[in-house]
């Protein structure tokens, strides 16, 4: 019987409804679709056929580039997240000091975060061109090098550049998360530490790190997810060339489904990526929830 419709009981859900609907249609439903597709036969023109078990997954794992791509993804995530966390942390520590022009420095350092990744990647792509790139030009004119250097002589080096650009654009996020954490640290804690005769390292270890750990955790986990999902840098700079040697999973599955028209293995890879993200998300949620309970 719906006559006993309890207004106060249902109101919260009504308020949530638009948001839930939006997420359900455009996030949850595509996830289900991808799952469904990954177990179906898909022709080159995209016509969905019947259920074919794990065939797509087997095809995906047997792709010749699969191993390289997975290894690249691992290197990409670890290098970019690791280094940007370390560098971002150092920059945040410095920005937390009082000095002239701190506001200007903050405004400058936040720039890469606000800029579209495609644009960033295009600019770096131009900078490191061998024949006319700006880096060679500047270094030659400054007399640092005597001859133009080929900054992208091999795919390994190109991949390192891509990681570098990834680090460059990720640093601001870490910096500003850590900075927010640092600014909530009470100065009296440091004063107490100094009274106890703590040096720089001991202050860092015993006061700073425990205080910024929550924001560092948030930024690291979010970064793992963003960096794993990052597409424009690699797509703009090398498109995975040569022969998928600089691809990460995301660019690889994009090329696979929209260029090579191998939708079946691509959906299987999507699901694999999805599951990896789920694990990260699970760890993250575990952390958040535990904090919530405190």
């Amino acid at each position, binding site marked *: 019987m719906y006559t006993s419709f309890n207004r106060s009981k249902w109101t919260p859900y009504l308020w949530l409804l638009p948001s839930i609907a939006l997420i359900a249609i455009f996030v949850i439903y595509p996830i289900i679709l991808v799952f469904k597709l990954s177990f179906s036969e898909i022709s080159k023109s995209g016509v969905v056929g019947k259920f074919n078990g794990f065939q797509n997954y087997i095809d995906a794992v047997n792709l010749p580039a699969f191993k390289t791509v997975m290894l690249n993804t691992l290197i990409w995530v670890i290098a970019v997240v690791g280094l940007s966390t370390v560098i971002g942390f150092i920059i945040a520590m410095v920005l937390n000091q009082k000095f002239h022009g701190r506001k200007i420095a903050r405004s400058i350092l*936040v*720039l890469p975060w*606000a800029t*579209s990744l495609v644009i960033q990647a*295009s600019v770096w792509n131009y900078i490191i061109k061998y024949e006319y790139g700006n880096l060679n030009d500047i270094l030659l*004119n400054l007399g640092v090098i005597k001859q133009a250097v080929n900054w992208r002589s091999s795919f390994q080096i190109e991949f390192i550049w891509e990681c570098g650009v990834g680090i460059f654009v990720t640093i601001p996020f870490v910096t500003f998360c850590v900075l927010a954490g640092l600014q909530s640290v009470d100065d009296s804690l440091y004063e107490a530490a100094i009274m106890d005769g703590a040096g720089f390292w001991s202050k860092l270890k015993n006061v700073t790190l425990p205080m910024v750990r929550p924001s560092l955790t948030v930024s690291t986990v979010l970064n793992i997810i963003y960096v794993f999902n990052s597409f424009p840098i690699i797509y703009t700079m090398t498109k995975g060339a040569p022969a998928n040697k600089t691809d990460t999973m995301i660019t690889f599955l994009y090329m696979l489904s929209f260029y090579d028209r191998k939708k079946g293995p691509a959906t299987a890879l*999507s699901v694999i990526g999805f599951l990896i993200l789920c694990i990260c998300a699970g760890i993250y949620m575990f952390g958040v929830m535990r904090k919530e309970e405190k």
Partner: protein
Amino acid sequence: MEREIKKQNRLAAGLLLLGLVLALVVMSLPMYSFQAVVYTKKSSNTTVGDEKYQEALAQAQEVLEEYTSQGFQVELSEDVLERTNSKGETTSLVTFTISETQTKNLFSFLGQPFASAHVLRIMLACMILAALCMLAGLAKTSGTLPKYLPKRAKMLRSASGWFSLIALLTVPVFAMMNTYTFSRRIYLYSNDLMQEGKDVLYPQIDRFLFGGSAGDNIDSVLGKLSFDCSWMLWLLMILFFLMLLGAIQIRFGTVKSTLLRGLLYFFIIIVCIVTLYPYYVMLITALRSNAETLDMYFLHIFPSEWKFQNLIDIINRGVPRYLLNSLMVAGGATILAMLCGIPAAYAMARMNFAGKKLFLGFIIMSQMFSPVVLLIGLSQLMTTMHLNDSVLGLMLINAAFNQAFAIWLLRGTFVSISPEMEQAAMIDGCSTMGSMTRVLLPMAAPGIVTALIFVFINAWNEYTISTVLISTSSNRPITVGITQFSSFNMIEWEYLFAASLIATIPVVILFICIEKHLTSGLTSGGVKG
């Protein structure tokens, strides 16, 4: 006490003067060596040691003696290139080269009209001024602590430090300018890559290196000029640093804290330069001519001609349309995300209900998935909804993918505002809706603006979904639109960056405005309360 200060001050002043004297000594030592080829003799179809070889060698040695007798530092070297001719005989091409090496100290640059000579003059002036200021400031006040100093003495001591700093900085500038003059510009001139200014620079170098004796021969001589700068130049820098330390010690008392301060500024400046570098490249490339963007040799720090025409040209290449699309996508997505997000955030912040945690988990999960993994599903969905290749589709997807952040930020803001005011409004007869729109929302305005701008920027910068879903050119947002300037075989860098510049400036300004609210919101917003 006073004696101790005096002693310390004298020590520091001694350091400064020692640095000065040693610097002057170092400057008079030979520091730059130039090697120029003054004579070559080639002898072909010979073998090493035969008659023809001996003849050429004798000729070369004759020239060598001539140079030596005039007091030049010359040396003879031979280069043998073996080759086999069509008959199968191996013969050699022997090249005898006489090269002249000259060493110059820094003072020999002084009278020259090179740009580096001006720097050298500044360097010398600063050194001497630093010493004079120091001595003048120290007179009669050498026993006073820095903080009790009379104003004039304080200024003089500071000035001494600043002059030393300038002297320090002139060293790399001087080195750079010499490198530029003697390697880069000569290279550009002698390879006919640059014409302007050759008739000025060549006589200058002729006079400087050969006393004008090279004459018309200068072109071939300079073509093979190589030069080397001794490590002593960097020793000079260390000596200036010594002067600086002395000055700092006298002015502030503690060197350590001042050094740390300097290191901090140094670090910040370096980081800022690296961060700004791509933006600088974007700016100058956007305002260059196409020929200049593709040629390394003519480029300098700034374009030779500022081409604002590029910004006008891209108007005819569809950029206004792309910007409008981006504005529609980002604006629509922001409004939609806010309309759905504010009630949800409100419910999360103010109401208690079963499944609250589940919903929090739900939105956090949705934040985890960038659209890339779901691209195939999304494009399928868009096809069934007939939203493929449309601005509306992008709008909806962007709104959905930004829900998590919007709720996340908004909830944090709402939680941080005490509910008492709203309760008061409700007692006065306001509905829940009324208390929210009249009391809470105005108070939460800064947080809402932050979330709004953040969603807008995210949607504006989005690239991946658009590149897959949009195939009609007139429906592209700007991030996809700019890629039309970089086709496979020809990249119009100046247009690419001109469009990028226009796409970047507004969002960067918006971002800087919300930066402070955003970071605290992101790290704590979701978990407050």
